[in-house]
């Protein structure tokens, strides 16, 4: 009791108060901390945990395996080949940059050595390339180069690059990247021991330097996404794979990944139909994402053909795996994995063997047409040619074609490793050029220049080229400024009565031409000096102009300053023909004439018509099944090898195809629309009978000239066929008969009404499917039905234009007597396990509802046509019915050769449409069809129809339809 009182009364000392304050402060601090921890861990803990998981979770997609494409017999056309990719993932952590550089360089260097020792190539996406010893240059310009630098210097935007970085030369860049601040290729601090320990060479070769810098740059770009491995080499061989796998312990981070490469079998024959795949473009991506949001930039999608059309089926579904990464993006673990689903398989209706044989038959015949029609002359005076049947190919056009279609490499003539013959040709060429430029200079400076129309054709071509191509393209002549109604312009461009010099003088006075750019001090020059300067400028400009050089070669060949022999020898020099010393000597010794030589090479298909791109150079065959509309064959010549365009695109090959004058990308079967010629006559026959304008057995007397219209239309048989019924008119392809039908269809109460005639024809044309695309799944050009001139339209003239596939559907409808099916290339779609997803059923476009008697008359006519046709004489293989067509465009170029038919006549199991654009005469198409049909029915073996050389066709092109 007492004690308590004392305690209570005892004065609290100052020290106790102060310590008490400290104590309270300590407790307050602890309280603050615990409160904070409570907020962080208990109240918001879950949010932190979730957010954190999000920031370290990366979703990585696993590409799906693209579906395969088969032919109707289950033979593979497109599939995926497993390939191995060497990858490198920088997953280590290093004490400092020095060690990091040594380690990474060492791993990459040793990996590259392994890869190269087995003949594989390192994959580099690096925009610098060697330019001579110890010098470098950029391999990109403009935006691409700026973007490359921005990536290299870690800038998101090009604008963030400093002036110095922007203007850095390739040499400086490589020095900088090699320094210890960057990749440490050149680092004084590396000791001899370190060089040994890290197995690095004391100095790198230029090639090694390029590879290491390129790979390190790729790695650096990945610095914060280290879970993305970089690609070191693609499609490496088994030996590389095994050696790298054996050395994984000493090459940490290096790994082998599997990748699938798209492979096309029999590519040449299916190129345009199958197409190819490639990285998705921005526009394609936008379009694809509208239907499937799973598409991402960098995905491989179909670019052309079936690959593109059936993209959604072939693509499959991507898989997904979730990975957790650390602060530098190194993979910590992989969580869930959704396996990718392989794309669906496509079974086409096409038959590989048939397609292949048809392609070769087509090539052999086109070569045969070129071979038969090539004549040993320098040029043909087109004024003498009255009919397109008489057009021939002068052999000098063949020589020139070798230059024009880039078979011969003009640039190689002046390269250091050019052969003696190449050098000689080049010397001749330079001589010729100098002569041309001297002449042009003379024309520009003489007081008495020659008017354009009085120039030789050769110089007219050169001067036109100078004005229309060179001066306008180089911006010296401003096309916009020219007043089209100016009299001097008209005198130059249309009347051709003034000279180039006069035109230029006028153009300068009118300020159409800016002469300032071409030389210094042009302002102080008199006109002679100015023209002299201009002609020098022209010379310098045109010397490297490939198009101009080609024109020069043309005239060199014409005038004989370059001989056919020299050109033919170039074929050996440049490796286009396999070297044959005997032939080479015979040719250079003059024992074989160049004419015989080149024809021999055409005959033996060593030089193909596709390479020459003369007329003709292309053709198409389509074979269908009358019962379903399934397309068994769809060939377009020339084809291309889509294997070289897929995976890593061979851009040189691509450019060659794009500039190839034979247009291999252009499908002659589905995209080229041309007049059908006499093959159209079945439509007119149907229309005439069904509209009661003609009776089946009514006789119409052909006089050889149908003169009820202006101008009168000649029948191909000028003396007239006499009386023709429907069947015989089809047999004889009598123009007069079908003109009459066209005329009668157009009669409206005794008045000629062209529109009515066209409408009547179109009504029946539509029943045969000629009003719509044929249904094939690849892109097809829409048909164009004639819009005027019903009388010629009735026999296939006027402005009809159809694809071969459209003609194929038409004849398919005739073959099955009235069921116009949509054509299809796809038989069925199955999933990757072979379960059918979509089994295509035949779809009717329309029916041709006509009496059986009319069908019989049409079939009989077509059968008779074949029976009496010269190419079917003594033909016993199978009973064929058909209709030929020779569609004439103008008299100066060969007509198109066409044939439609079906077999066997009694019970058709196939229908065929053949066309060779500018193929001279329908009998060529008929012969192609004949051989193809024989093979189709097994009557001739592959060896019998594919001889490996051109088919000798008759050069008598007198038309009979």
């Amino acid at each position, binding site marked *: 009791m007492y004690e308590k009182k004392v305690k209570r009364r005892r004065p609290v000392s100052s020290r106790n108060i102060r310590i008490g304050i400290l104590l309270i402060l300590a407790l307050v601090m602890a309280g603050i901390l615990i409160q904070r921890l409570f907020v962080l861990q*208990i109240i918001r*803990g879950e949010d932190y945990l979730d957010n954190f998981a999000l920031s370290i979770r990366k979703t990585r997609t696993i590409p799906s395996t693209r579906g395969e494409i088969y032919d109707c017999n289950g033979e593979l056309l497109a599939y995926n080949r497993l390939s191995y990719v060497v990858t490198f993932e920088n997953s280590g952590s290093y004490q400092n940059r020095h060690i990091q550089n040594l380690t990474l360089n060492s791993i990459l260097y040793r990996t590259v050595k392994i890869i190269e020792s087995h003949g594989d190539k390192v994959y580099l996406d690096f925009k610098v390339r060697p330019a001579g010893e110890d010098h470098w240059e950029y391999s990109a310009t403009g935006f691409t180069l700026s973007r490359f630098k921005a990536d290299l210097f870690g800038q998101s935007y090009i604008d963030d690059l400093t002036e110095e970085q922007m203007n850095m030369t390739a040499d400086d860049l490589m020095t900088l990247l090699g320094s210890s601040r960057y990749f440490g290729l050149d680092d004084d601090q590396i000791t001899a021991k370190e060089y040994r320990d890290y197995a690095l060479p004391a100095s790198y070769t230029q090639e090694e330097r390029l590879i290491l810098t390129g790979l390190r740059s790729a790695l650096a770009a990945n610095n914060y996404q280290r879970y993305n491995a970089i690609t070191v080499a693609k499609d490496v061989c088994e030996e590389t794979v095994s050696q790298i796998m054996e050395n994984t312990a000493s090459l940490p981070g290096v790994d082998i990944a599997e990748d699938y490469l798209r492979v096309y079998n029999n590519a040449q024959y299916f190129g345009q139909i199958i197409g190819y795949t490639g990285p998705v473009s921005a526009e394609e991506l936008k379009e694809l994402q509208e239907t499937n949001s799973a598409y991402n930039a960098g995905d491989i999608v179909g670019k052309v053909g079936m690959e593109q059309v059936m993209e959604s089926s072939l693509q499959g579904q991507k898989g997904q795996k979730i990975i957790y990464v650390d602060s530098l993006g190194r993979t910590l673990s992989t969580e869930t994995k959704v396996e990718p689903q392989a794309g669906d398989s496509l079974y086409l209706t096409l038959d590989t063997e048939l397609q292949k044989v048809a392609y070769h038959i087509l090539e052999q015949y086109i070569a045969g047409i070129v071979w038969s029609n090539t004549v040993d002359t320098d040029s043909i005076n087109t004024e003498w040619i009255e009919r397109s049947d008489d057009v021939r190919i002068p052999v000098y056009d063949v020589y020139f074609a070798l230059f024009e279609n880039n078979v011969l490499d003009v640039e190689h003539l002046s390269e250091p490793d050019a052969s003696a013959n190449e050098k000689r040709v080049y010397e001749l060429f330079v001589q010729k050029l100098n002569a041309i430029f001297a002449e042009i200079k003379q024309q520009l400076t003489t007081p008495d220049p020659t008017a354009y129309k009085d120039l030789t054709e050769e110089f007219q071509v050169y001067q036109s080229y100078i004005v229309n191509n060179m001066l306008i393209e180089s911006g010296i002549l401003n096309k916009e400024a020219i007043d089209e109604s100016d009299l001097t312009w008209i005198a130059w461009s249309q009347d051709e009565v003034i000279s180039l010099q006069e035109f230029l003088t006028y153009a300068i006075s009118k300020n159409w031409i800016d002469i300032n750019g071409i030389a210094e001090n042009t302002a102080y020059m008199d006109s002679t000096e100015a023209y002299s300067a201009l002609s020098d400028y022209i010379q310098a400009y045109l010397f490297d102009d490939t198009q101009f050089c080609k024109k020069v070669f043309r005239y060199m060949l014409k005038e004989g300053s370059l001989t056919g022999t020299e050109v033919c020898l170039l074929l050996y020099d440049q490796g286009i023909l396999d070297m044959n010393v005997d032939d080479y000597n015979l040719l250079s010794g003059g024992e074989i004439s160049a004419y015989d030589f080149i024809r021999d090479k055409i005959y033996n298909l060593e030089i193909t018509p596709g390479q020459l791109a003369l007329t003709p150079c292309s053709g198409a065959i389509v074979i269908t099944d009358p019962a379903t509309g399934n397309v068994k064959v769809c060939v377009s010549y020339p084809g291309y090898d889509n294997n070289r365009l897929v995976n890593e695109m061979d851009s040189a090959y691509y450019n060659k195809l794009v500039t190839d004058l034979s247009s291999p990308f252009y499908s002659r079967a589905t995209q080229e629309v041309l007049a059908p010629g006499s093959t159209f006559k079945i439509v007119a026959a149907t229309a005439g009978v069904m509209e009661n304008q003609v009776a089946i057995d009514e006789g119409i007397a052909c006089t050889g000239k149908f003169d009820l219209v202006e101008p009168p239309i000649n029948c191909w048989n000028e003396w007239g066929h006499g009386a023709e019924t429907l069947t015989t008119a089809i047999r004889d392809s009598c123009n007069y008969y079908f003109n009459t039908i066209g005329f009668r269809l157009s009669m409206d109460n005794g008045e000629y009404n062209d529109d009515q005639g066209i409408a009547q024809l179109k009504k029946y044309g539509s029943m045969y499917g000629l009003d719509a695309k044929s249904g094939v799944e690849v892109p097809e050009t829409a048909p164009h039905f004639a819009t005027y001139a019903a009388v010629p339209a009735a026999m296939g003239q006027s402005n009809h234009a159809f694809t071969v596939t459209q003609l194929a559907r038409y004849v398919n409808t005739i073959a099955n007597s009235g069921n116009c099916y949509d054509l299809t290339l796809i038989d069925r779609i199955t999933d990757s396990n072979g379960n059918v997803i979509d089994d295509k059923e035949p779809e009717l476009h329309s029916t041709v509802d006509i009496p059986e008697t009319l069908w019989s008359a049409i079939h009989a006519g077509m059968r008779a046509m074949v029976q009496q046709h010269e190419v079917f004489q003594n033909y016993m293989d199978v009973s064929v019915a058909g209709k030929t067509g020779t569609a004439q465009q103008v008299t100066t170029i060969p007509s198109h050769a066409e044939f439609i038919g079906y077999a066997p006549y009694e019970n058709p199991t196939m229908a065929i449409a053949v066309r060779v654009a500018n193929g001279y005469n329908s009998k060529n198409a008929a012969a192609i069809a004949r051989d193809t049909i024989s093979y189709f029915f097994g009557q001739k073996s592959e060896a019998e129809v594919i001889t490996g050389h051109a088919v000798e066709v008759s050069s008598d092109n007198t038309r009979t339809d």
Partner: protein
Amino acid sequence: MFKQYRLRDYRLTLIIYVVLLSTIGVLVIGSAQKVYQTRQLYGLILGVIMMFVLSLVDYTWLLNFSWMFYIAGNVLLIAVLIFGEKINGATRWIRLGIQFQPSDLVKVILILFFAGLFSKNEDKLNTFRFIMLSLLLLAVPLFLIYREPDLSTTIVTGLTFCAIIFTAGLSFKIIGGILLVVVPSVVIFFSIIMRPGQTLLKDYQLERIMAWLKPAQYTDGAYQQQNSIIAIGSGQLYGKGLNNNMVSSVKGGNFIAEPQTDFIFAVAGEELGFLGCCLIVLLECLIAVECFRIGRRAKDLAGTCISCGLGALIMAQSFMNICVATGLMPNTGLPLPFISYGVTSLVTLCMGVGIVINVGLQNNRYR
């Protein structure tokens, strides 16, 4: 030098707290960076030995050498600036056989030194001259530490000094006056450093402050702190467990640089959760409180100052460290007492505790 002590006065609780806390430290370090665990364990053993030895040494006797300690401490600090090893841009370590951080030792030395100084001059404590003199004596080591540069240790040492002089009996009038000056100055200081082109602080110092104030703009500087908050937050109530190898571990993803030192609390928070964190905070607080209690019953002012100084040091440093780790303060580099990796820090703090125990052994029975 040695006196006879009564065993019942020996503050075993304090030793238990220290050993318990340090053991947690060793475990957490082992989880953060395995390689440092063994050395920290040796540090702990050495620390406990030193603590025990010093607890038996009469602190009054030690105070005789306080000037010597003071001079030796400053020499060490100068030596660091001249011969020290530069790590991460700061010269804080010196190699004397082992790597050694003098500023840790100086903190304890200064507690002893000022405790001695104030107890001897208790009567002059509130004179202007004496205050100026003690500030000058403080300024020398503080400047040397500041030059390392180690702003945070400078601040903590300054705060400890404040606690000692406050305990020693600095007049409340003077304290009031100082507060009147200091509070507006701090406001002015912040308003100055917020302006562009200021020269008061070094760039890295400003950046840390700015990163704390505006984390969105100064993401690089705040990165470490943000990750620490995420780590602590994600620990929730029970934590993810020591040495876990969960994928969703902030520490495991290398999101905290050098987790064994200043941001050890992030690892502790993530792995031990709210319960573990509270235990650490409470233990740090209990150690400080125990020091204060010993100080209250010390036989003389020197003993009180030593105990309260050490308590204040431990509490201030813990508070600042955890505030940084939880984002309540700008990023400063301070170790968490007894937990963070750092043998010098651990051993010197143990020595300090040893001296405080000795103060407790010589307690004033009548108070």
